């Protein structure tokens, strides 16, 4: 498969007061189109930082991160925002739905930045909610949904622009076991049936087992890159 993400000699150093903290140290990797990758590691291993750089919400100190031919570190803030709208779908641990909007409106938000008409947006949003099994709840506000349902709405929001990458940061971290399984099964289905490339950060080996490939990080270094048994 063609690499959709190419990372070369990537280093990210944070400044904490007068101390430099290396979050990522000289990492290189490729992620092919249609892959489902889990990033694992203990706290402070750099997995979230790596995800953030691939998603264009953080910048490397050195090295490059090329997503579908674009070196995201070289884009301006405005270009990066537009690039994220087209190429990245976010799924967060705490769902991060906007509480004053309905499920439909939350999913519609990224589409407000596109040139789609209201009827085109409606069709896209309904399709995304149908895909996550929540079309019947589209007029509910987040507080009227369970945690699992909120996360599925967040997945629909991530999907609705048909992005190049779906990035998920601990997507099951705030869910009970049943809801977590539902969300993971949904991500697997999106990868398997819709060919979506998914990169997921997780602490949980059971969640990571749903991915095709697991990258282990520790102290900012890539320790292990392994295929999961199917």
């Amino acid at each position, binding site marked *: 498969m063609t690499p959709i993400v190419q990372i070369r000699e990537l280093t990210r150093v944070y400044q904490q007061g007068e101390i430099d903290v290396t979050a990522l140290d000289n990492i290189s990797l490729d992620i092919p189109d249609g892959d489902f990758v889990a990033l694992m590691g203990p706290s402070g291993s750099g997995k979230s930082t790596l995800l*953030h750089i691939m*998603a264009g*919400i*953080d910048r490397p100190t050195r090295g490059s991160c090329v997503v579908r031919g674009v070196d995201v570190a070289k884009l301006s*803030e*405005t270009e990066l*925002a*537009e690039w*994220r*709208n*087209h190429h*990245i779908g*976010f799924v*967060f641990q705490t769902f*991060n739905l*906007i*509480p*004053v*909007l309905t499920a*439909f*409106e939350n999913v*519609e*938000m*990224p589409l*407000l*930045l596109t040139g789609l008409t209201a009827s085109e947006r409606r069709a896209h949003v309904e399709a995304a909610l149908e895909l996550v099994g929540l079309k019947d709840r589209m007029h509910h506000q987040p507080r009227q949904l369970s945690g699992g349902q909120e996360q599925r709405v967040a997945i629909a*929001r991530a999907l609705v*622009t048909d992005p190049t990458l779906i990035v998920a940061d601990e997507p099951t971290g705030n869910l009970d076991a049943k809801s977590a399984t539902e969300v993971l099964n949904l991500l697997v289905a999106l990868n398997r049936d819709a060919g979506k490339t998914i990169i997921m950060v997780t602490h949980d080996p059971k969640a990571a087992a749903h991915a095709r490939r697991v990258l282990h990080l520790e102290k900012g270094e890539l320790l292990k890159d392994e295929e999961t048994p199917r």
Partner: protein
Amino acid sequence: MTIAGFILRNALRNKRRLTLTILSVSLSLFLFTTLQTALRELTQPPSTSDSALRLITRHRVSLANVLPEKYQYRIQQVPGVEVVSKFTWFGGIYQDEKNFFPQFAVEPEKIFRIFTEAKVDPLELDAFIKERTACIVGIKTMERFGWKIGDRITLRGTIWDCNPELVIRGVYREGIDETNLFFHHDYFNELMNDLGVTGTFWLRVRDEAAVQPVIDAIDASFRNSDAETKTETERAFQLGFVSMFGNIKMLIGSISTVIVFTMVLVTASTMSMAIRERMRELAVLKAIGFNGRQVFSLILAESFGLAMAGGLLGCVGAWALFSNIDVYKATQGFFIKFDVTPHILASGLLLAGLLGAISCIAPAWASIRMSVVTGLKETD
């Protein structure tokens, strides 16, 4: 959903805070509008083409000093002067001190040749002129005390040691202050044992071109006399009269500044709280593709809308209130009119809009500068 709809939802998310903020802004704008209207009424009395032709000659030292009656003949001889009337502030009390209204001793056959814009029934004017103890009263004062033509009233002198007993022979309307009472200067003189003085002279000149030459000629005529004069236009005279209250412009300006500053603090505080508790949501908006300019626009629109809602409520509320109450009665005759002009309304709304924009700059700037990663770490 539209972006405008999203902004509205955000604004409405904390209804109690929204209501209190809008009320604070509206109250401030109401006070601002009221003060500006009061300032206008005090410093810019209505000016008509007739009033532009009226001049007042008074003692150069102060209004409290009187002029000799005999000056009238020399003033009348100045080229360009059409008519001159003695005009003395009586300042008496009708029954009770709280019943204040202006009273003047004037020359009855001349006064409405000077105040040409006032409307008087010719028969009533004739009756006023012919009877030595007659008076003519503005419609507002007539209505205020429920007077009718033929009623007898007594004024108790406070400045002058006399108590004129007057009979109402006429009513005038429109054009000039409708609260005045005019009575005969001759009767006043008689009561004062021919004192031979007048408070001021009011005169009407032929045309606007004659205004300045007449002013110069009159004042030059009495220079180096015992009672030097100061002649000025009606408008200048009224502004000078207002300045006797002190520096009203500065006082009202200072209060308005405090009001504006309070509004900035209230709105800025609300917007800071609203944005602070939404940092994570703003970070999510950025993550899904909103750029800094778009996020700034969302915050600006919300703040602007909030301030404008308060502004509309306060300014239009002031306009509606003062259009529907009798300000003359409410202020016991202090203000005759209280017109919230389109200019004052526009100033209030412009101020509200500016404050809405200014008060959100700091929190909006902070949200723009905030990185998405930092914003996502914010706790609810």
